[in-house]
C-alpha cells in the first residue's frame, strides 16, 4: 500500500481527495488502478501525469517501482525549453 498525493486540480477530479491509498507496485499499476477507481482521472492520465517519488520527477518510466513508505506525488506533465 502506498499513499499518493494529488496536486490541486487532480484532487478535484478524484472527488475532492488530495490523498489516496492504493496497492500498486509500480507507476503502471498505479495509473491503471487510479483510472479504475477514479474514472475522472483518466483524461488527466491520458494527457500525461508525472510522478514524483521522494522528490525525483519521473515523466515516462512507467516501470519505476514504488518503494514502500516512499513519498509519491502526482504532478502535471511539464514542458521545458
Amino acid at each position: 500500500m502506498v499513499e499518493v498525493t494529488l496536486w490541486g486540480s487532480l484532487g478535484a477530479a478524484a472527488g475532492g481527495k488530495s490523498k489516496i491509498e492504493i496497492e500498486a507496485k509500480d507507476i503502471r499499476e498505479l495509473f491503471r488502478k487510479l483510472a479504475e477507481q477514479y474514472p475522472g482521472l483518466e483524461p488527466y492520465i491520458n494527457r500525461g501525469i508525472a510522478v514524483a517519488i521522494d522528490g525525483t520527477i519521473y515523466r515516462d518510466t512507467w516501470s519505476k517501482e514504488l518503494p514502500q513508505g516512499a513519498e509519491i506525488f502526482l504532478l502535471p506533465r511539464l514542458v521545458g525549453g
Partner: protein
Amino acid sequence: MNFDPRYSTRNFTSVGTRPIRPDGVDKVTGRARYGADFNMAGQLVGRVLRSPHAHAVIRKIDTSKAEKLTGVKAVITAADLPDLTDGDAAMYDILDNCMARKTAFYDGHAVAAVAAVDARTARQALKLIEVDYEVLPHVTDVDEAMKHSAPVLNDTIFTEGLEEKPAKPSNVTKRSQYGHGDVHEGFAQADYIVERSYRTEQTHQGYIEPHACVASVSSDGTADLWVCTQGHFVYRQHCAQLLGMDVSKLRVTSSEIGGGFGGKTHVWAEPVALALSRKAGRPVKLVMTREEVFRASGPTSATSIDVRIGARKDGTIAAAEATLRYSCGPYAGMWAELGAMTAFACYKLENVKTVGYEVLVNRPKTAAYRAPSAPMAAFAVESAVDELAKEVGMDPVEFRIRNAAQEGTRSSYGPVYGPIGIGPTLEAAKNHPHMKAPLGKNQGRGMACGFWFNFGGQTCTDLNIGMDGSVSLAVGTVDVGGSRASLSLVAAEELGIAYEQVKAVVADTSSLGYNDMTDGSRGTFSSSMATISAARNAIKILRERAAQTWDIPVDDVVWEKGHAIAKGDKYGNLAALSLKEIAAASGKTGGPIAGHSELVADGAGVSFATHICDIEVDPETGATRVVRYTVVQDAGKAVHPTYVEGQYQGGAAQGIGWALNEEYIYGKDGRLQNPGFLDYRIPVCSDLPMIDTQILEIPNPNHPYGVRGVGETSIVPPLAAIANAVSNAAGVRMTHIPMSPPRILAAIEAEQAG
C-alpha cells in the same frame, strides 16, 4: 541489459576537461549547414500568407488568380491540411496554428501558402490571393482578456479547475492551484507583510536563425524533411500525424540549429512545406523572414502577478501567496501553472498558496522559452522577498539563506526535495568577492535566486566501434550548444579511450530509435546516460571478444583504462588487449562491435542558481548599464565546464535583455509594431560586461556521473536580480518588466513627485 543510473563517486579522466568541440571547425569555416543552407534539386520556394488582423473570421479565400500565375506550382489553405487529429486537442491547436481554419487569431496567423519557382513569383502570388475577412474585436492584454467585457476568442472554453463549471465561456482556460499549510493562519503570525503587483511583457526567444526547412514528398507516400529543430523525432511524429503519413516513411534530418531556446520545440512551417510539396510534386524550401519569426513563432507569455509574503521578526517567512495570470496566445496552455509551481520553489515554507490562470489573447501561440514561465514568477517573488528582507532589517542574502529550501523540505509545488543546491549557491554568493566590491555613483546591487525542474525523457544512442578502434557515437538529441563534445567526453570516459578517438553525430530519424527533443535541459543529461549505457553494452562485447581470444571465461575479463585485462594470477602471462587490438580482430571474433541503448532517462535533478548584479541608472534619462554580473549555479557534474559556463552566461544575457529592453509592443489595432531586431532590441556586445560564473557540483543521485541539466535555470534569476539592483540604484521599486529607460524615468519622477 539492465542499466543502473545511480550515482557513484569516481575519478574522472575525460569528463571535466575542456577539449575543442567536434563540430567546431565546420562552424568557424562556414561549412556547417543550418536550416536554410540546404537545397534539393528542382526545389520550389514556399511563402506563407498571414493575417493582417488580430482577430477575424475567414469567410472565403479565393486562390484562383494566384494559381494562374506562371511559375506557381501549388497554393494551399487549411483545406489542404484537413483535420486528422482525431480529438487530440493539443494537436488540433498546433494544426490550427500552422494554418488558420475558420478564424485568424492574431496578426501573423498563417491563412494560405504558395510554392513557386522563385521567391519573386511566390511573393507576387501571395498578393493575388483574396481573403475575405470579417474583422472581430480583439484583446491582446492579459488582464483585459480576463474581464467579462472582453471579446471571447473561443466560445467552447469554460474555465477548467473551478469547483463548479462556469455558466459562460471565457478567455480563462484553466485555474490551477499549488501549495500547502494555511496561508491565513500564516499571515496572522507575520510581523511584516509585503504585497505588490507585477507585470512582465511578452518576449521572443530571439534565436538568430529563422525557422527553415526543405520538404520533399513523393507520390509513393515517402517523404524527406530537412529542418532546424530541437527535436526531429518529435517533428516527424507531429508532421506524420497532421499529414496522415506513416511515421517510418517520413525521414527527418535535423540541420545544425541556429538557436532554439524552446522556440523550435513544435512545428510551424514544416507541415505547410510538406503539404505544398505534396501538392506540387516537387521539393519545397520554406524559410521564415525575421518579421514572420516575430509575428508568428515563439513567444513567451506576458504576465500579471500579485504576490504577498509575510515574515516574522526573526526573519522566517510565515506565509507566501501568489496569483499568476499568463497569456497563452489563442490556444490553451499550462504556462501560468508552471509559474505557480516554480514561484516559491527556492524556499522552505510552512504556508504557501499559488493560483495560476491561463489566459487566451490575440497574440501568437505561446511557446516554451528556457525554463518556461519561471523567470516571470521569480521576478515577482524575488522582488517581494528583497523588499521583505529590508522590512525585517536583514541582508537580502542572509534572509534568503534563513528561508532556503533544503533536503527534506516540502517544495511549494508538492514533493519533498532530495539533495539540492539552493543553500550552497546562496552561501557561495554570500562569500563571492562581488558582494563586497564597492559601488559607484548611481549604482545599485541586486541578487536573486531561481529554480527549474529539469527533465529527462526517451533517449536512444548507438555506439559503433570501427576496425581501427575509433568510435562513432550516434545520438538523437539535437546539439544546441556543444553536447556532441560533452557526449564524446562521456563515451571516452566510459571506454577509457582518448576524446579524439570518438566522433559524435546527430543521427536522422531513420537511423536511430525515437528520442524526445532537446528541451527541459535534458540534452546532455539524457544522452550522456544513454551513452554510458551504450558504452557499457559495448564493453560487455569487448570483454567477450577478449575472453574468446584468450579462450578463458568472460567473467575473468575486466575492462580498465581502455583495455581488456585477464583477472587472476593464473593469467599472469596474458598481455592486456587494447580496444584497438580487439577492434582490429573483430571480423574474426564475431563481427562488428557496437553498443546500443534505449532508455527513459528520468530522474533529472532539480536545479538552482543565485545571480548577483550591479546596475548603474542614469537619473536624468532612465538609461541603465550592467556594470558587473555573477552567476552561481549547481551543475551536478560539469561534463565540459566551458560549455556549462556558456549556458550560464547565455541564460544571464537573455535574462538581462528581458529585464531591460525586450518586449512585444502591440498597437490599438492589435498588430505587432516591432517585428524586427531594430525595434525589438536584444543585448549586443557593448551592452554587457564579462559575465562571471561559478559552477557548483552537487551530484545528482540519479545519474552515474551526477550530471544535472544546466541549460535553463540561468534565465530564471536575472529579471529579479536586475529589478532589485535597479530599484536599489534608483531608489524606487520597479514592478514592470522590461525596465526600459522611459519606465525607469517615469518611476523616478513619480517617486520625486511624492
